[in-house]
């Protein structure tokens, strides 16, 4: 306990000395997130300095081993770091699919060489990754994917297309599910490979979403030559890696979506915008009731996330299939939260363009949340997983 208190003291002092003032306010919208990558242009010196300092300590990925660019911190220490960062409202120095998804999968399934090659650049924000999973005819039924990787001797020849690839046009590399054995049962012929988005044969085409923003792409592979050294794990056994990665993705989406950190909660927004009556209650009974129940759920959900992580740490394992609980509940909650935000904003939420509304930041965010219960596996698929794997209910 003393060591942890000492760690807290040192962390607080270090953050105080090293976190630039400009990095101590909640991130407002996608535009202020630091994604890193080869072509990244920092929005400010502060953003660059903050990333460099955190990366130098391994604190962009505090739980990863030091050998791979991480901080080597224990579960308890990571918690302390997060608490201390939250206390000064420090921004996350770096967000990336490399941190959330690929990194954990490589730590579990990658060769020593692959870990040394790929993990440190992720930790430093030098390489930006995208996720090549979904295909036009393989969304929820992901394992029915058709993009094929044929044996070309010392390399694979990849042909096919992906869809909904977030940030494919901005990413440096892709982690991709491909079919390496078309004759095998669908889960047993899939492999997990890594390659560069600049290699010949790779092209992307943006897809515009209802929010009017377009970080999404169709991605096409036309005879892309990928060295066999870029295969992760065993040939045709990529599904195990895919699933492992998905549990991390789900945990992350659920957690990120449901949390109250960063921005204000709907209750606080409501108090500011609508006002309180003489008893300190929101001056709108219908809104207050719905907001109060959403607040109860959000607080209890945040505790559940903490409980699962504590349980996982105590048991020396991951969150596992319970990531589906977090994914489902967190994303449904986040949708509810943005429905409330729109009701609270009233006419103010209707403006789509113009400086006053920051080009419709709120309605665009509201529309974006509709994807929370689709991306990374839909709510229906999450409920299926809970029913079958956690409740052991029979298949139809």
């Amino acid at each position, binding site marked *: 306990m003393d060591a942890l208190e000492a760690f807290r003291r040192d962390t607080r002092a270090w953050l105080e000395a090293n976190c630039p003032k400009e990095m101590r306010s909640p991130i407002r919208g996608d535009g202020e997130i630091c994604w890193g990558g080869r072509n990244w242009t920092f929005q400010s010196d502060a953003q660059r300095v903050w990333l460099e300092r955190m990366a130098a300590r391994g604190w962009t990925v505090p739980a990863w081993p030091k050998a791979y660019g991480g901080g080597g911190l224990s579960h308890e220490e990571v918690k302390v770091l997060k608490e201390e960062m939250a206390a000064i409202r420090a921004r996350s120095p770096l967000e990336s699919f490399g941190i959330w998804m690929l990194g954990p999968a490589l730590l579990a399934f990658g060769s020593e060489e692959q870990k040394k090659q790929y993990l440190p650049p992720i930790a430093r924000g030098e390489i930006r990754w995208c996720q090549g999973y979904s295909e036009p005819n393989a969304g929820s039924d992901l394992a029915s994917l058709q993009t094929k990787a044929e044996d070309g001797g010392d390399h694979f020849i990849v042909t096919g297309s992906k869809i909904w690839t977030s940030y494919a046009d901005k990413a440096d590399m892709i982690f991709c599910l491909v079919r390496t054995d078309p004759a095998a049962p669908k889960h047993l012929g899939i492999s997990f490979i890594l390659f560069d988005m600049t290699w010949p044969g790779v092209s992307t085409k943006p897809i515009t979403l209802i929010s009017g923003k377009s970080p999404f792409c169709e991605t096409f592979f036309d005879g892309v030559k990928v060295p066999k050294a870029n295969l992760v794990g065993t040939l045709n056994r990529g599904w195990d890696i895919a699933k492992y990665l998905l549990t991390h993705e789900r945990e992350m989406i659920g957690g990120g979506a449901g949390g109250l950190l960063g921005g204000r909660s709907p209750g606080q927004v409501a108090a500011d915008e609508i006002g309180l009556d003489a008893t300190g209650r929101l001056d709108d009974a219908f809104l207050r009731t719905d907001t109060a129940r959403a607040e109860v759920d959000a607080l209890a959900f945040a505790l559940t996330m903490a409980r699962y992580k*504590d349980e996982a740490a105590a048991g020396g394992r991951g969150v596992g299939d319970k990531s589906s609980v977090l994914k489902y509940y967190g994303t449904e909650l986040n949708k509810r939260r943005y429905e409330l935000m729109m009701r609270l904003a009233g006419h103010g939420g209707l403006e789509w363009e113009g400086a006053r509304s920051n080009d419709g930041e709120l309605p665009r965010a509201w529309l974006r949340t509709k994807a929370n219960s689709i991306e990374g596996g839909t709510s229906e698929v999450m409920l299926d997983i809970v*029913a079958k794997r956690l409740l052991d209910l029979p298949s139809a």
Partner: protein
Amino acid sequence: MLVLNEDQRMLQDAARGFVQEKSPVASLRKLRDQHVADGFDRALWRDMADMGWAGVLVPEEAGGLGFGYVGAGLICEEMGRTLAASPFLSTAVMAATALSRAGTPAQKDRWLPAIAAGEAIIATAVDEGRKHNPAKTALKAEASGNGFKLSGEKIQVADGHVADAILVAARTAGTPGEKDGISLFLIDPKTRGLSTERVATLDSRGAARLTFDDVQVTGADLVGELDQGLGLIEIVLGAGRAGLAAELTGNAQETFGRTVAYLRERKQFGRTIGAFQALQHRAAHLFCEIEIARSAVLSALQALDRDPADAALSVSLAKAKAADVARLAAQEAIQMHGGIGMTDAIDIGLFAKRMQVAAELYGDADFHADRVALARGF
């Protein structure tokens, strides 16, 4: 850490084993069908006391176990699973909290060892109206002699019909609705002018309606500070609310478990109904809700162990969530059992009835959601 430690896990295992063996749902049925006036089994309560449960919150120097609120909550949760009837909540949780925190030395000496030994039952009388609202306490305490004369009424006093002593919230000053002016007294139910009427409750247990007709109490009967009792009452209620929230999650987990088991065995249209996605998704949703409630309950119990005076938000969060979730669990249990779920022959209805009592007592989900909202600034 939102996990149980080794000692707490052992207590949980012991409690589960004990209630399942000594107090299965069948015992509650027996109490009901035989119209046992106490609403609980005294021999069972003695056995529970032998396990140390009655003293779970009594300090060790007074003969208790000093196991804390997490321990008490685990016992409540297990009781919720089998609908065990006992004065555990009223006495071992609430009265022990009141007296160990605010009792005079004489009150502590007299009552704490007796609570720990399972020899004294103490009820807490707060509610007077349709909905729970301690600040609205109206029962009048007028200065008289070296003490007060109490007049008014208390309803739904859990275990009030079997209590050896009763903690009563009374208004010594101010008007109903004001936070100041409320005091807590510990009185003998046989005091002249106090009449106790047993009320058989929905959950086949018992509560009392108390009528005070110039009941004389002395200064020595006061627990805590004169006119400033609401803070103490809130702490005592907080302990009770957290205990009920734990009981409600136990109730929800058990009805849910029984429902899932039924989904696995009942066949319609040539397959087990658990294979129908329409039911699977509702069951999966309910499972998620129960998980959320459990976290809120554990967090509230831990907050009480840290500082009961600073746990109000956590406790209200837990009671609001647990009450809503247990209600959903009861509804879904009946629905998914189909017609058989409506029958008295299976236990689901008994769980639903206990749920309703526990959800309403000391503030329903709306009451507590309101408090959460206020604490969060709106």
